[in-house]
């Protein structure tokens, strides 16, 4: 790789040790996955779960001292910056919540421990994406998070899950192939795989466009952006609810952050790139919300809603390099989105997948019902919740970057989304049914998610201060 030659001379060993220290959180995630696998092979899945939880939390903890560092490791191929640090701080606890959420669904099945391993590996893929400084890391990130999540979707091994897993696999393989094919043009034109060398592309517009489109296909598939979203509703609905929660948050956020990492280094106004991203944003927001309007299955409804939320996410990406708010908006929205979306899925895990399962939930389980209302209105973006602050920052960043029209499309979409989420709320306060059983881990997940959904909203200023 070209970057190698730029490596500071002398003290290579020291450099290596330093780089490894900066990568401590990622290494901790990898060790967690491997350790959990070992326990699974020893047929000790009950150890595998706490080991995964603690390992991931330790990895998140290891990130804290790194906050504020802006550097790269291993010859610029991986970035340790605000995006990648906050990706760890947000996505690792989010993964822990999903792991806990999955416990009632997978406990006492054979392969229970495997699920936790796959969660960790997929999360690692997302983290690699979020910090990618080299196109090879983009490929590895997409690959790692895909390979980890295919079996998660197919886990129940019934017809639906197998079909969903297959669809996801085929779609993912093609998207990844297109991505690898396209970004070789970048390498051909610049002679470097580093993302920071992308400005050299200004002399080769065709290669630049080819690579960009390909990168957007691969990452857009991971982020379930329209028109690369077809797999998402089936995959979410085929697998366990916890996997749907996980897929809708962790790999997605990783992929969005990866697009932001590319956006940083593009030559200004490169090949209409911001416009292309804006177009994806409009498509995703609008299609996601409209499709969600007619869903009768809450998991599919949330899947389409997650597509729409990816669209909002892209408003921050559009603003990267143009607005000082861009990175903070991405981070704050990621935190809010992780909390409210996992929270909403946790309540689905409690109530059931069908909209009819939600009938009377607000009466039979008032606390969980109230929490669901909070998650949903936070997804709409109503103050003072986290979703509002995150969206507000995204819209602000887009306006700051000269994309006021995009922000207006976003606001109009938010209003449409109110109708989407209110359908669940209305159903929840209809005629009461029997109270569904509430496993303790599920309750723990939605309570934690609730705290963060509200917390991100109220303490937004604190978070903003840390990110900036």
């Amino acid at each position, binding site marked *: 790789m070209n970057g190698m030659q730029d490596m500071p001379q002398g003290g290579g060993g020291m450099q290596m040790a330093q780089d490894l220290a900066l990568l401590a959180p990622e290494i901790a995630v990898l060790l967690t996955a491997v350790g959990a696998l070992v326990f699974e092979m020893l047929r000790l899945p009950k150890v595998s779960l706490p080991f995964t939880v603690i390992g991931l939390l330790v990895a998140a903890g290891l990130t804290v001292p790194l906050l504020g560092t802006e550097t790269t490791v291993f010859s610029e191929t991986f970035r340790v910056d605000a995006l990648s640090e906050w990706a760890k701080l947000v996505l690792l606890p989010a993964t822990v919540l999903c792991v806990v959420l999955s416990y009632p669904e997978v406990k006492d099945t054979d392969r229970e421990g495997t699920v936790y391993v796959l969660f960790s590996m997929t999360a690692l893929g997302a983290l690699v994406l979020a910090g990618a400084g080299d196109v090879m890391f983009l490929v590895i990130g997409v690959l790692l998070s895909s390979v980890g999540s295919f079996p998660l979707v197919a886990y129940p091994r019934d017809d639906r899950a197998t079909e969903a897993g297959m669809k996801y696999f085929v779609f993912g393989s093609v998207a990844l192939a297109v991505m690898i094919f396209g970004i070789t043009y970048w390498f051909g034109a610049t002679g470097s795989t580093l993302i920071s060398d992308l400005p050299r592309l200004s002399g080769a517009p065709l290669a630049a466009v080819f690579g960009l489109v390909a990168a957007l296909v691969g990452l857009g598939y991971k982020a379930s952006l329209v028109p690369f979203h077809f797999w998402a509703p089936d995959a979410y609905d085929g697998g366990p609810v916890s996997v749907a929660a996980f897929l809708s948050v962790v790999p997605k956020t990783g992929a969005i952050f990866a697009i932001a990492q590319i956006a940083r280094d593009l030559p200004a106004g490169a090949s209409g790139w911001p416009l292309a991203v804006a177009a994806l944003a409009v498509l995703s927001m609008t299609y996601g919300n409209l499709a969600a309007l007619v869903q009768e299955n809450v998991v599919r409804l949330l899947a389409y809603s997650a597509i729409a939320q990816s669209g909002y996410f892209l408003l921050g990406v559009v603003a990267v390099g143009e607005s000082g708010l861009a990175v903070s908006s991405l981070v704050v929205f990621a935190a809010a989105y992780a909390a409210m979306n996992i929270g909403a899925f946790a309540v689905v895990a409690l109530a059931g997948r069908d909209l009819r399962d939600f009938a009377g939930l607000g009466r039979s389980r*008032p606390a969980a019902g*109230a929490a669901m209302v909070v998650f949903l209105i936070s997804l709409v973006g*109503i*103050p*003072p919740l986290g979703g509002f*602050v995150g969206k*507000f*920052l995204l819209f*602000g960043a887009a*306006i700051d970057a000269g994309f*006021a029209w995009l*922000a*207006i499309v976003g*606001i*109009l979409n938010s*209003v449409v989304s*109110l109708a989407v989420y209110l359908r669940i709320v209305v159903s929840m*306060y209809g005629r009461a049914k029997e109270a569904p059983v509430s496993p303790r881990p599920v309750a723990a997940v939605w309570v934690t998610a609730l705290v963060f959904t509200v917390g991100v909203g*109220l303490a*937004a*200023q604190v978070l*903003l201060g840390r990110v900036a």
Partner: protein
Amino acid sequence: MFPVVSVTLFLPLLGALVLVFLPGLSARAAHLVGLVAAGLTLVASGVVWARGALGGGFSQVEEVPWIPSLGVAYRVGVDGISLPLVLLTTVLFFVALVFSLEITERARSYVALFLLLETASIGVFVALDAIVFYVFFEVTLVGMYFIIADWGYEGRQRAALTFFIYTLLGSLPLLLAILGLYLASQPNTFDMREYIADPPLTGLAAMLALVAMLVTFFVKTPVFPVHTWLPLAHTEAPTAGSVILAGVLLKMGTYGLVRFALQMTPDAFRAAAPYVAILAVFSALYGAFVALAQTDLKRLVAYTSVNHMGYVVLGVAVAAATTDASVAALALDGAVLQMVSHGVVTGVLFLLVGALQDRAHTREMGAFGGLLRAAPVLGWGFILAAFASLGLPALAHFPAEFQIFLGTLRVYPAGVLVVLGIVVTAGLYLRAIVTVFLGELPERWKGTKDLDARELLSIGPLLALTVLIGVAPFLVLGVVHETTRAMGLL
């Protein structure tokens, strides 16, 4: 200083939370919680009123920074325009809850929704931050939707949905206008006081923002031709819901007209004032004539709301158009007083029609006759309220409408055509009184009971207020005028 405004704002919400988290409460206990919460809120708003609005500007301001770097904060306070409306809100909610004591079906949810709606309504009037305002504005929709959909009459589901969609779509333009104001303010802020002190938008942008605001507030008020949700929602809503809808929620439209359109885009409003005035005159006359054609008492009262709110819009348009500060203050005083009077008088009328319906299970005027003999208190109450509604001197609407017409005469002499509306309302109310309360008492209504204690307790205070405002309008106008004068409208 003790944050009385915030206490007033959140006391009802506290009551609602108590109800939500005590699922085992009986209907009686739920009503008790509601009355205590609404009663304490009434007292707190009385304290806010007593503290007043010093110098006519925003007073008793309470501010908690939230995201300082983006100019978003929790900001509440009152001035002479919002103060009477806050008091009106707390009075009407208390009265509505007293009248609702008979509700036993899911009383806990019913009371909780009313309390939630009360917090949202007070919030709209005291908000000094555009985001806070918008949120409360939307929450009122949700509260009212459930009240109509769950406790209304036969066609309630459709009526509730129409109401919800209409007003939800209607409030979208306001959001865009707020966004425009935010982006144009330097530094960017959602502080409504900043927008008012130094209107950030000019030229075409201001005109677009004004049009957006007018759409939102006209739907809410409502003004012809976007009034069609109102008769439907009113006829299907439960009685107490109608009282709140007409008494409080409609005021948000005209309050927004003053607070946002008039104060934040004054120049654009001046340019648009003739058109707004024409629409207001037409709407007022239209409301009166359509009310004349009604045979259903509740629809009749609902359409007179379109008439009365038309006068308010006319008053605001006159205030926007004139270059004479004293005329502007006169018209605006009238408009604000008209909001209060309409809230009180229409409240009484809906309560009485509700009481009548509870007895007779019909609202068709033709079905009644001579009721004054069977239920004299109900009858005289209705006659008094009807006289107030048609603008008889010494009753609540007279001083308000008088000031509006006086202002109109100075600015748009032709606009005085609107006085015709008074003649029509006089006619329709007299007809209603004659057919329902005078003449022979048919056999089937012989046993009609008069108002009981619960109804008297809710209707009596409002009737007293009707007379009080009519006889001593300065009690309200003193506060209002201090602000309208200080606004320095030119």
